[in-house]
């Protein structure tokens, strides 16, 4: 198990190195001169030259890359052009709200999605299935930002039950996490249903029924556990969706997280912040997928790690 983990971790290195390289090149792909961008529109040529030296942009590309990697390993991504504060500080402040928002959204959407999926599979082609799948296909078709605006309009503006924007208390988390998780719950429901339908036709399920086990036990013990394997894979993939989706949802709810920081940074061409965030988002996503892979072993002992 440990060996497998290390092997997988090493396997990530080339991917992450290329991602890092791309993020590094990002500054050089931007239209215009980054030094001029950093110095501001009114800067004299002398100031621009100074800034260029300060940012290390006068050195050769490989040298700059080494500097970038060296900094990144120590969590140093330079300073924000807008606030002049270190990028790592900017991101650190915004990390927790996004993290918790994603976790809460993932938690409810997995539970609800799987419940709908299982119930739909049990009552296949009857009304609970039809209803569940109608909700699910609507869920994947309704854009998050529109859903967020709708929920905010109903529960915050009209009914005054919940706060509109901000992230101060647990009540602030309800609407954004509902918005963010809706699509994932829908995808999980569809996916759970199809994998559960397959499993209910397996021989071991028929055996369990034949030996007189109550249906609830058949479903919980023989069905659910085996259905979890593909569902967990899907969960890993959906985490990426959530991380991306959080960007849009944070804009709707004015959430003080990394997504809104990214949108603001793109808006103001604050490229050191963009670099840091893109790298962090990717790293997070890749690591989550690794964790998901390891979870297989816990759920299904039949899978041997090699």
């Amino acid at each position, binding site marked *: 198990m440990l060996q497998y983990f290390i092997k997988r971790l090493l396997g990530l290195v*080339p*991917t*992450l190195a*290329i*991602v890092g390289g*791309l993020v590094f090149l*990002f500054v050089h*792909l*931007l*239209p215009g001169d980054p030094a001029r961008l950093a110095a501001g529109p009114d800067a004299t040529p002398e100031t621009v030259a100074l800034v260029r030296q300060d940012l290390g942009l006068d050195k050769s590309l490989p040298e700059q890359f080494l500097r970038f990697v060296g900094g990144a390993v120590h969590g140093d991504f330079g300073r924000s052009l807008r606030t002049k504060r270190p990028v790592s500080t900017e991101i650190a402040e915004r990390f927790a709200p996004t993290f918790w928002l994603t976790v809460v959204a993932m938690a409810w959407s997995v539970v609800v999605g799987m419940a709908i999926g299982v119930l739909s599979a049990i009552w296949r082609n009857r009304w609970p299935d039809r209803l569940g799948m109608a909700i699910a*296909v*609507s869920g*994947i*078709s*309704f*854009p*998050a*930002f*529109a859903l967020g*605006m*709708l929920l*905010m*309009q109903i529960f915050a*503006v009209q009914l005054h039950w919940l706060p509109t924007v901000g992230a101060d208390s647990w009540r602030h988390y309800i609407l954004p996490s509902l918005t963010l998780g809706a699509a994932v719950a829908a995808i999980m429901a569809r996916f759970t249903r199809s994998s559960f*339908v397959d499993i209910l*036709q397996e021989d071991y399920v028929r055996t369990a029924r034949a030996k007189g086990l109550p249906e609830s036990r058949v479903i919980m013990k023989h069905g659910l556990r085996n259905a979890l394997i593909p569902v967990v894979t899907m969960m890993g993939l959906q*985490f*990426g*969706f*959530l*991380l*991306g*989706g959080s*960007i*849009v949802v944070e*804009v*709707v709810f004015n959430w003080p997280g990394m997504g809104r920081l*990214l*949108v603001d940074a*793109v*808006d103001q*061409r604050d*490229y050191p912040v*963009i670099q840091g965030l*893109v790298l962090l*988002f*990717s790293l*997070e*996503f*890749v690591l989550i997928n690794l964790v998901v892979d390891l979870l297989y072993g816990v759920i299904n002992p039949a899978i041997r790690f090699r």
Partner: protein
Amino acid sequence: MNDRVDLEEAEGAASTGALASTEVRTPWTEFWRKFKRQHVAVIAGAFVLLLVLLAVLAPWLVPYDAENFFDYDSLNALPSAKHWFGVDPLGRDIFSRILMGSRISLTAGFVSVAVGALVGTALGLTAGYYAGWCDRIIMRICDVLFAFPGILLAIGIVAILGGGMFNVIIAVAIFSIPTFARLVRGNTLALKHLTYVEAARSIGASDWTIVLRHIFPGTIAAVVVYFSLRVGTSIITAASLSFIGMGAQPPTPEWGAMLNEARADMMTSPHVALFPSLAIFFTVLAFNLLGDGLRDALDPKIEQK
């Protein structure tokens, strides 16, 4: 795969009797026979066709100019006979804007996925057929593209290229490439060891012929299904980018951009946000239902259940 079709044809012939003997069963008619049983998908498909027609004819259909007509007498007006979807805070007719917006959203959805599917399929066929270093390089590129979660890749590309709808389409196209590449590669790997491909090679067919004439047709079904589902996702992604201010800019009547504009006036005129939301929802829903129907019609496993 051909065996299965033959078998089903045989069964179909037995049950329909004389009909089958006069009618030639091609894969196309076989697909149609299964597809038209999916009533929801047929309706969704008809709706998509209607949308495309509306989008094409929009400039001649709109009652008012979508960007430059301002009805100052009925600012924020609710839907009425004169303005079907009401009027926005600047006095523009929302129905006209939604109709013109359909051109942008459908173009963004279709073009970006078409480009993504084309490039992705080409890469997938190459990677799957030639294997070796070629496969490894292409799949490594896909891994890298996959390492960017959700629309982050699209945002990164827009950050480099700058905002605007054209760049959004490019960004969403690149975002679609790796999924198609992986899908087609998987299918290619499964197909290339089949006997009929072996047979084609043994009579001296070139790699080019084998890939294009013998392997590519086998991957079409999967690509078509995925295409339809992906158009829905791409429309949402493009609208999301416009919503966060990176795509179409006001006064362009792009649905996501319209919603972003409507956000400021949610308190006073929520109907301004309602119609773009519904437009996106029904359009994407239609593509998703169509995709589900296509999958059920094209997947040979479904009928056995």
